[in-house]
């Protein structure tokens, strides 16, 4: 090739970003400015540095993004190495986020990836507001649900209950299992949020305890008996640790004994691990496919360089190859991405009383509540130092704490759900003080 023009590193990407097109998004403005904005101004957060996360970091780095951050609480395990291509045997035990960030920076020069080795709940809500777009590479419904509620909490509605564009925090979510996967775009307030379509992820069916105790039929029943019933009987008070090989071995040998007793075939060590840890099979190819789709959609959302996915892609490679795009619709009554739950209060209600109220609220059932108002911590459950600092607010009227604003949005975080299956979440509340607002204002507060 002639070397008259010095070649650019962005040789291929430039064609997409610098040349105008007709099949593009409404905001697309081709040119070097766009490329440089993506490079310099756009901040992307990748949640998870596992099978999807490793691919996502690489794909985003090659899609022109330079300011990336990644958060993951896990350490590298040997079983990751068949697909998480940024990790080597010598990395086992190190934090995934740190190693993944380092490896991508080593190979794609100019990219800056900041890593966060912690739980997603450990970050203040404001941390998430710092990014233009959040890309999710997770394998847990709970974690998706949490991030979704955080991103949706930034959403503000105008007086006509239309979402305010600048408050929309776009998310791109991917997930895989074996040869199957999905990629979706969530524009809170515009396309359905994770909670609007929660029925797509039915909770895992647990075996009834009476089956385990009285009528086991399958190898899995014997394993769960050893894991959930026999362990506690034999080890008073000692918690079962699925990552302790001795514990796993104990459950396995108890399961074998039980299976023999009942004449049930099929208990193996591998199955024992699979059942106890609820292992989801995972391979490199599916992760690569889904991450690529997510990274491409991320670039499109940010740049408008092509049409975007509307709004849910499923991939299935089990029998032949099937891809399908489905446009899901929003749940108008969604607690998470809707305009917010309306809470009417007397002006005299203290912060303490307000918190108690949320626990009994039929829609919320929130416990261990922390409250923030316009970025200010009114009461924080943790860490202890913050709890101590905010404790004195508990006896003050919320109305006073909100600077006597008659009606405004209050953010709360806590744990929601029924029974022992509580999970972290963030909720947006529309707090209205009775007698402090005119009738006309009240009308618009009733949307949720």
């Amino acid at each position: 090739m002639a070397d008259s023009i010095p070649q650019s590193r962005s040789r291929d990407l430039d064609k997409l970003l610098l040349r105008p097109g007709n099949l593009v998004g409404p905001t697309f403005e081709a040119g070097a400015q766009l490329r440089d904005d993506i490079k310099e101004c756009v901040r992307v957060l990748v949640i998870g540095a596992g099978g999807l996360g490793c691919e996502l970091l690489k794909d985003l780095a090659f899609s022109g993004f330079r300011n990336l951050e990644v958060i993951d609480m896990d350490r590298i395990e040997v079983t990751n190495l068949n697909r998480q291509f940024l990790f080597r045997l010598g990395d086992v035990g190190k934090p995934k986020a740190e190693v993944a960030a380092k490896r991508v920076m080593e190979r794609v020069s100019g990219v800056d990836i900041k890593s966060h080795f912690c739980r997603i709940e450990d970050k203040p809500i404001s941390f998430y507001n710092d990014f233009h777009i959040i890309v999710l590479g997770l394998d847990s419904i709970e974690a998706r649900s949490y991030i979704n509620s955080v991103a949706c909490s930034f959403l503000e509605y105008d007086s006509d209950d239309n979402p305010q564009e600048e408050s929309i925090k776009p998310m791109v979510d991917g997930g895989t299992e074996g040869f199957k996967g999905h990629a979706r775009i969530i524009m809170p307030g515009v396309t359905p949020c994770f909670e609007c379509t929660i029925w797509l992820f039915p909770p895992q069916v647990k075996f009834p305890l009476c089956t385990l105790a009285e009528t086991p039929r399958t190898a899995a029943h014997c394993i769960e008996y050893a894991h959930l019933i026999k362990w506690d009987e034999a080890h008073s008070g000692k918690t079962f640790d699925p990552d302790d090989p001795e514990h796993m071995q104990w459950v396995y040998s108890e399961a074998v004994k039980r299976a023999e007793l009942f004449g049930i075939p099929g208990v193996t060590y591998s199955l024992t691990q699979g059942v106890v840890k609820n292992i989801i099979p995972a391979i490199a190819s599916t992760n690569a496919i889904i991450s690529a789709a997510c990274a491409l959609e991320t670039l499109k959302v940010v740049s408008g360089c092509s049409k975007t996915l509307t709004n849910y892609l499923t991939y299935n490679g089990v029998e032949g190859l099937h891809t399908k795009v489905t446009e899901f619709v929003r749940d108008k009554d969604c607690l998470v991405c809707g305009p917010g739950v309306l809470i009417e209060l007397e002006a005299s209600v203290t912060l303490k009383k307000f918190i108690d109220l949320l626990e009994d609220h039929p829609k919320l059932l929130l416990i261990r509540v922390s409250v923030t108002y316009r970025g200010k911590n009114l009461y924080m459950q943790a860490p202890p130092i913050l709890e101590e600092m905010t404790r004195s607010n508990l006896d003050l009227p919320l109305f006073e704490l909100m600077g006597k604003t008659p009606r405004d949005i209050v953010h709360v975080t806590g744990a929601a759900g029924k029974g022992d299956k509580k999970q972290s979440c963030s909720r947006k509340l529309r707090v209205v003080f009775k007698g402090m607002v005119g009738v006309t204002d009240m009308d618009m507060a009733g949307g949720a």
Partner: protein
Amino acid sequence: MAEPKVKYDRQLRIWGEQGQAALEKASICLLNCGPTGSETLKNLVLGGVGSITVVDGSKVEVGDLGNNFMVDESSVGESKAKCVCTFLQELNDAVKAKFIEDCPEELIETNPSFFSQFTLVIATQLVEDSMVKLDRICREANIILIFARSYGLMGLVRISVKEHTVIESKPDHFLDDLRLNNPWPELTRFTETIDLNTTDAVVQKHTPYIVILVKIAEEWANTHGGNLPSTREEKRQFKDLIKSKMITADEENYKEAMEASYKVFSPRGIGVSLQKIIDDSCTEVDSSSSDFWVMVAALKEFIANEGGGETPLEGSIPDMTSSTELYVNLQKTYQAKAEADFLVMEQRVRNLLKKIGRDPASISKANIKNFSKNARKLAVCRYRLIEEEFNSPVQSELQKYLTDEGHGTLQEANSVKVLPENTAAGLYILLRAADRFAVNYNKFPSEFDSEMDEDISRLKTTAVSLLNDLGCNSSTVSEDLINEMCRYGASELHVVSAFVGGVASQEVIKLITRQFIPMSGTFIFNGIDNNSQLLLL
């Protein structure tokens, strides 16, 4: 060195040790190691394929640093094949990795026998002419070939092999082989030992639904001239009959029986796709027949004789509410029948082998057993030569894909399914037109920033003449799409390559492990709105 079993645990749960062994025996050749090739191979190296050979004659350029993870600053000016190979080796030291610094097109021209040493060849970023030539070579040598191409926001993946047969297709949803509407004598006898009209509440609650359904189906048949429910009304009545046997409302086993009643209504005998395989002319076996077809021939005999229209029994039952004892005994009844059917199958296979002059022991017991168990799920995939597809695509199909205004949506309960437009077919035509363009102009449409407008009209002319040659005179490709194709300027975007490479590697895994069903037709990745499509041409 980590225990391979631990390292591969998450994939062993999908394709098992046999699948893994097949991967570890495979020797794979990659042609061109740009991002599409590198990403395809990366997924296979991680999974532990036996050996890889990377063929690429080019040197690493600065532009490659923006789309290929396997090269870095220090590799500019060096052999791309070498750099990619070195990086891939780093991912898994169990893989034998080597490289050949040679231009694939030249190899195809001058050394066709080179390809016969491999299990499978992955050809990336080849243009039409080289694809056709390589395809002929691989077909002749019976080497599995897979094409992968990324071009701007579009991509193509196509498998080419004369025939690929699958025993373990492992479908996600497949009707359990329970024979509720066609029980064999031992199953009937087993159900006869249980009384549905028991007054013992514990027994009532622990009778497995298989027993309930077999007995109620028999009761129904006795009062309906030997027939089972077929109309919607009859099916409803059948469910009512099940319900009438319940004593209390919380009997899980009876609820399960009502939910599983469709298994009674399903037709007896074999399904359409198996019938097609049975009817295939390959079942007339001779000494050159593959093991698969010998076993299909034996299966055909089995169905016509001992099977009474059914395949050998699979021999497993799903979990269901039951006492342990009844469940375990029921399981044994199914297993015993499956074992008996297998023994008959085995005898038939051995006899056939003798008849065609092969060693009767040349197919292992384990293989026949596996075949017997999976008989209902067999799959046969055949692929046209790429030359045939290119020169004479199934015209009616192509016409349909091209004119399919689609853009429709399908209203469902709480969603709308977005139907693919004719975009994918248009992209397919334009990719082929771009290759023709390259032959004429020695560059791809708008590969360089000069002559943008001229190239758009040139590509349009090329596309029109291609459509003419394919006999699709009445079809057109939209101006917007032509414009879009020129905008791409033959760029190889990393994300598109990662998607295309992901798909290609997944198909390679299915082909090598001989598990699951590889895709048929030509896959067109449509990165514009992600509505990709398989074109059956």
